[in-house]
């Protein structure tokens, strides 16, 4: 075996592209492991941990790309390095115009007359500098990047609001602004429901729920998960609420946040009292809020969508359109007892934990459990009833998000299937922009070789106008025997009922 490495100067590619190139390299002949990555301090640590930080690249600069290949012999290593060079330098196919791209936000503002929003997804340590530039240029900001400190978040949000600008994020994955879906979002028509959400997948689930009920959104703001913390004080949640309260195109407001701190909850409730519009609130937990006549509290995301449509009072049908029967037999699976949830959407996984505790009176084991007693001891090793958010940092360092790259989840599905105590595998498939182009085909290849007695329940989150063709995705999965639902709460309730049936 041999490990070879090269350093490439003067080239920059985004992290997703490099991870996809790394994936392709690993599939090259004679290659044991391979990676193409920016030579940042953090990445070098990752390389060191996997024994791939060879001496040739220890001095590589932060702005350089390193390619490391472990191969069976010298010849194959050289071949792989050649492939890497080609892939890294391949011109991006998207840019067929000969016009060169702007190289900075300042330049882009000149190139594009009337630009009004900047979508930023560079690595966290560079993110706030770019957000500053965008705000200085008078642009609304959606900051997809994570790993931005909470102090920086507060500073950026204050700065934005002084200028009357949006500062969605950091770690804001989803938004639909003026009808345009941004980052990990779904196609939805314009409509009368305005949403503000501190949860990305939570927002996607509600958008899908509204689309299935034939409704659209006026705006769907994301704020990033920490906006409800007292350190940020709900700055953006409140600003977006005020916008929706004043917005003539918004008839009903939906407010989603993962259990905000008490002082933020109070602020939000005070705001709700100041509007005559209905506000449907979901804090993703069973909590009680003060009685406010125009406030409706929901505990599931799908119910949130349902209630919002009911409150519109537009006389149209409120039932969700279904893409398959969504009725499956509930019967115990012989000898098998446990449920294993393998999620790509963090909020969906969280909703599953709540649904589980409602049914069984306690939480299942999870890598995102808030109480220590339910926390997984080893995230790579499931035990009992267990729910894993595979979008958590445990699984995404140096790898694309599980909504984009299914390879790790496929491996976990096969592992869980081989455990003869597992009765149900619960999955989510998130469609829309940013997500995998054909997840069903990837899943079917693994699911079809699972033991037949195992139940596979899958929530497909998407809308019919999403780029993947949702109906086709659903039918591919149902054809493979998967129990498909287009509402997460219905899917998880069904999955848990199978488990419950086995224990009676």
């Amino acid at each position, binding site marked *: 075996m041999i490990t070879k490495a090269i350093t490439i100067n003067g080239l*920059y590619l*985004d*992290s*997703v*592209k490099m991870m996809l190139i790394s994936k392709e390299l690993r599939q090259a002949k004679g290659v044991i492991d391979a990676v193409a990555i*920016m030579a940042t301090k953090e990445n070098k640590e990752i390389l060191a941990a996997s024994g791939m930080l060879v001496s040739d690249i220890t001095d590589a*600069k*932060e*702005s350089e790309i390193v390619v490391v290949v472990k191969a069976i012999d010298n010849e194959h290593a050289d071949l792989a390095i050649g492939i890497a060079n080609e892939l890294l330098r391949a011109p*991006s196919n*998207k*840019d067929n115009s*000969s*016009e*060169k*791209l*702007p*190289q*900075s*936000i*300042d*330049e*882009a*503002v000149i190139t*594009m007359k*009337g*630009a*009004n*929003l900047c*979508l*930023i*997804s*560079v*690595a966290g340590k*560079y993110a706030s500098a*770019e957000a500053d530039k*965008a705000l200085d240029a008078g*642009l*609304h900001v959606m900051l*997809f*990047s994570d790993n931005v400190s909470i102090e920086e978040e507060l500073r950026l949000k204050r700065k934005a*609001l*002084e*200028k*009357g600008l*949006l500062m969605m994020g950091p770690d804001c994955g989803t938004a639909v*602004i*003026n*009808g*345009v879906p*941004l*980052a990990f979002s779904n196609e939805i028509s314009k409509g009368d429901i305005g949403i503000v959400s501190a949860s990305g997948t939570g927002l996607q689930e509600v958008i899908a729920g509204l689309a299935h009920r034939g409704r659209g959104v006026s705006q769907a703001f994301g704020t990033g998960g920490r906006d409800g913390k007292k350190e940020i004080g709900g700055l953006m949640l409140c*600003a*977006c609420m005020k*916008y929706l309260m*004043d917005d003539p*195109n918004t008839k009903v407001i939906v407010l989603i946040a993962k259990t905000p701190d008490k002082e933020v909850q109070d602020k939000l409730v005070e705001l709700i009292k100041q509007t005559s519009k209905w506000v449907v609130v979901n804090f993703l937990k069973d909590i009680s809020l003060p009685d406010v006549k125009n406030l409706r509290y929901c505990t599931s995301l799908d119910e949130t969508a349902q209630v919002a449509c009911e409150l519109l009072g537009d006389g149209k049908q409120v039932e969700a359109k279904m893409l398959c029967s969504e009725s499956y037999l509930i019967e115990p699976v012989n000898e098998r007892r446990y449920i294993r949830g393998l999620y790509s959407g963090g909020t969906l996984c969280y909703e599953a934990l709540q649904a589980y505790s409602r049914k069984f009176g306690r939480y299942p084991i999870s890598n995102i459990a808030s109480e220590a007693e339910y926390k997984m001891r080893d995230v790579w090793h499931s035990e009992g009833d267990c729910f894993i958010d595979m979008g958590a940092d445990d699984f995404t360092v140096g790898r694309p998000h599980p909504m984009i790259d299914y390879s790790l989840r496929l491996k976990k599905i096969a592992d869980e299937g081989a455990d003869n105590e597992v009765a149900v595998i619960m999955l989510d498939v998130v469609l829309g*922009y*940013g997500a995998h182009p054909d997840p069903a085909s990837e899943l079917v290849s693994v699911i079809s070789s699972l033991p037949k007695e195992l139940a596979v329940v899958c929530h497909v989150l998407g809308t019919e106008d999403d*780029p993947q063709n949702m109906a086709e995705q659903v039918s591919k999965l149902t054809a493979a025997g998967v129990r498909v639902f287009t509402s997460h709460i219905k899917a998880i309730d069904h999955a848990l009922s199978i488990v419950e049936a086995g224990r009676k």
Partner: protein
Amino acid sequence: MAMLDLNSESLKVINVGLEAFASDLASKDRTVVNVDWRPPLDVNPLAVSKISHAYEAVIAKANAEALKIINQGKPVLIGMGIALQTIPGMHEDLILHAGPPVTWDMMCGPMRGAVIGALMYENRAETPEEAEKLAASGTIKYQPCHELRAVGPMAGIISASMPVFIIKNDTYGNLSYATQNEGLGKVLRYGAYSPEVLERLRWMDRVLYPVLNRAIKHLGQIDLQSLIAQALHMGDEVHNRNRAGTSLLIRQLAPALLKTMENIEDTTAVLDFINGNDHFFLNLSMPACKCVLDAARDIPNSSIAVVMARNGTEFGIQLSGTGKKWFTGAALVPDALYFPGYSKDDANPDIGDSAITETGGLGGFAIAAAPAIVQFVGGNAADALSYTRSMYSICFGESQKYQIPALDFRGTPLGIDVVKVIKNNLVPIIDTGVAHKNPGVGQVGAGVVKAPSEPFVKAFEALADMLQSD
């Protein structure tokens, strides 16, 4: 706190980061522009904070002053002379070279070849071997052209008895110097030292120099600024294309050449020589930029570059606000179009003082004015336009004298601001010829080379240390 304003018009998105987000939007005909983003340069954070605090109040003021001086500079050709008697500081054992300081043992092939040739031309050595020995002996001293107010293309060698042009900045009175351009092919500036090369140099001394000198004397002076401004309107950027500039020069010189003619053979030979050398004007456009930029030296706190120069080993810059100090980094190999039979493997790293043209807002910065040579920069006119456009974002201002027709006569980007280079992680582009790495082979290609970032990072950090508040 202002209310959010979404101005319900259509959303126009600038995407920075994951390219897929931009292509998703574009696939549905939504308005999006993707930024070709790269991480910022690795710069000492303390320097960054010092500079950003001082930029508006201190640095930008100094830069405005520097830019004003540069824009008011007026280069004129006023005469010629022999280097030893003309360039202050020149002496018989001194050889001037392109770029930042470099010792004999660190010199690249072409520069060594040119030194060997110069020593033979000066009759200090009979053979290349003898010359090499003398060059390494310590008797011969080396110094950058720039430090004696001179500039030289490629190896940029100036030795004591070479004739030089004298250019004056008419506004500020300072002078600059450059040798006469030898033409293409086997020439000293590419490190060639064969008998034909030395013979040409001697002819240039014996015939070209006196004939031109008489004509220039007769004219009194030639306004180089006006020639450069016209040449830009005629498809030159006066670094890699000097055809218009050379033609305009002949137009100016012709009557004076006839008026001062001593014999028809010499004058004809001189006109033939200039006519056969499209780059003749380069050795005037370079010192023209040099004397204009030299006037803007030593303005405390200014982050504007007054020199960019390469010696084939290192790339060096000097800032107005940091005095005589050089900031250097390894010179890069140009990404060029190579002549048949040659490739990047044959190329020497970037070499020559000719990057003074880019420093003065010309050359690569004005490539949009030179559609005839766009094959050097990717093949189509749009590439040339965008090269020039991108340089505006690292310049403090624009030229008031030199304009680009294709950009609706916008002034060329002028006054490279090292702070903007660092902030945008965008280095100057230089539109250059490429020398073979072995002495004597000559030019093997032409194209565009990016300046290395290291000299700019070092200059930025040094400026931060030297910042003075009133």
